[in-house]
């Protein structure tokens, strides 16, 4: 017994980390022993993949430390890609009960593929040393409702574009800059497609002459609304060079 780590769930944040009972069972297997609080099993259920019973920012802290240089930017991207991948996975999983059109489902399925691949790419790049797994939560989103899904998708894609654009200035290796550039334009393609599904053939697909260039702290605060863990940026760069819209 002395060799077996004892896992004590002592605060609500730890309760919020496992997404469902299966994950808790995995944790138990890993931890060997576990002390439950009474509320734990009511806080998640086998089918609960919505994360709707957990509050954003209530979990353990995940820190992205900019002292790590380019790795921090990749971690920042990884966090966003996890959000997007989880979101679209839930969207696709809810197709059976949603009122999305056939065309919309085709677009959202493609995007789900892309975002999952982006997530797995960053996971592989960062490895176990620099990787982390976020638990997402979408308390105010109705995955059965077309408008709820598309509006959230638009928000996530637009956020992704301005996040990559704003984090690029902290990248020091041209290879990493290119890696980010290869992804951000696909996010922009997504953003345009989603916006056009919402408002066909208006200027919604590209509402501004220049996309926003937004600093990581602002993005992290916006992303926090979908993440159970507390997102923290450490040693965040004091300087930020504004983009053409001068609003980042």
């Amino acid at each position, binding site marked *: 017994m002395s060799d077996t780590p004892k896992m004590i769930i002592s605060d609500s944040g730890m309760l919020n980390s496992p997404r469902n009972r299966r994950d808790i069972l995995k944790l138990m297997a890993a931890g060997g022993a576990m002390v439950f609080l009474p509320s734990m099993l009511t806080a998640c259920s086998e089918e609960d993949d919505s994360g709707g019973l957990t509050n954003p920012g209530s979990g353990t802290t995940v820190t992205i430390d900019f002292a790590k240089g380019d790795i921090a930017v990749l971690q920042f991207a990884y966090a966003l890609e996890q959000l997007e991948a989880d979101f679209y996975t839930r969207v696709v999983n809810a197709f059976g009960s949603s009122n999305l059109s056939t065309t919309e489902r085709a*677009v959202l399925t*493609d995007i*789900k*593929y*892309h*975002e*999952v*691949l*982006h997530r*797995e*790419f960053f996971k*592989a*790049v960062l490895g176990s040393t620099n990787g982390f797994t976020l638990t997402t939560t979408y308390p105010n989103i109705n995955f059965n409702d077309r408008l709820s899904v598309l509006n959230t998708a638009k928000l996530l894609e637009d956020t992704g*574009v301005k996040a*990559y*654009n704003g984090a*690029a*200035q902290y*990248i*020091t290796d*041209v*290879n990493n*800059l*290119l*890696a980010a*550039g*290869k*992804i*951000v*334009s*696909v*996010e*922009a*393609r*997504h*953003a*345009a*497609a989603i916006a*056009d599904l919402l408002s066909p*053939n*208006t*200027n919604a*697909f*590209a509402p*501004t*002459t*220049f*996309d*926003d*260039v937004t600093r990581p702290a602002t993005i992290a605060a916006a992303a926090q609304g979908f993440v159970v863990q507390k997102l923290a940026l450490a040693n965040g760069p004091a300087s930020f*060079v*504004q*983009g*053409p*819209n001068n609003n980042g």
Partner: protein
Amino acid sequence: MEQTTLVGSVDPEILDAVGKRADEIAQGARINGKLAALLALGSIPIALGAISKDVYGQTPSDVLDVLQFALLLEHLEADFYTRGVAATGMIPAGVQTVFTTIRNHENEHVTALQSIISAKGATPVARPAFDFTAKGNLAGFTFGASQYLTFLALAQAFEDTGVRAYKGQAGRLINDKAVLNAALAIHSVEARHASQIRRLRGGKGWISGNSRGDLPAFTQGVYDGEDVVLQAGITITSLPDAGSNGGVTGATEAWDEPLTKAQVTAIVTPFLP
């Protein structure tokens, strides 16, 4: 090499780096960074061109070169859409807003790049008299009332090229953050345009493999190399879940690829006078 205009062509970050070294050499002498850099330059003038190119990789002359190149591409797009929107009866009423939006963006990109280039003391490249028949590849194309589909096909080629061109040049801007930001802010807007145009043509907003779809063969260079599945040393198709997330198609769609300046030049050359 930039020996004749050495100081002017050296990036401020290089000056800082050289300055720090000179400061160490001076051992406490109160010299400001720039003066120290000049002193240091005096001792290593021949080497500096090599340092700024090979170690740092990017110089202000690179930045200007990128800006002028980007301006040429924006001229191409701006002229194309300006003519398209002005053409009587070509663009269907239901999508006029899409094209006036893109036209406005491209004209504003031109203006912005001209301003940046001028601010850096150079003369912005003038707009050439473009040949939108692409040296006869699109013989008879005159933005005519019945030629909307040709216009749309060209638009796709230009937008997808623009995205890849900016991506290919971004690395040369890594030391000039303001210009990098401007380029990135344009790059993603070009991607939005590309997505919209592709979807107007009944396709996906993203590029599958290296397929040009139904575009004419002379545009294949726009899509060559878009079919890679190796990203930063990682084979995307071998990742967990890749098989259930689009496979090779998903892996090529999820990443856009850069084009070199030479590749872009080859694509654009048929449209130049």
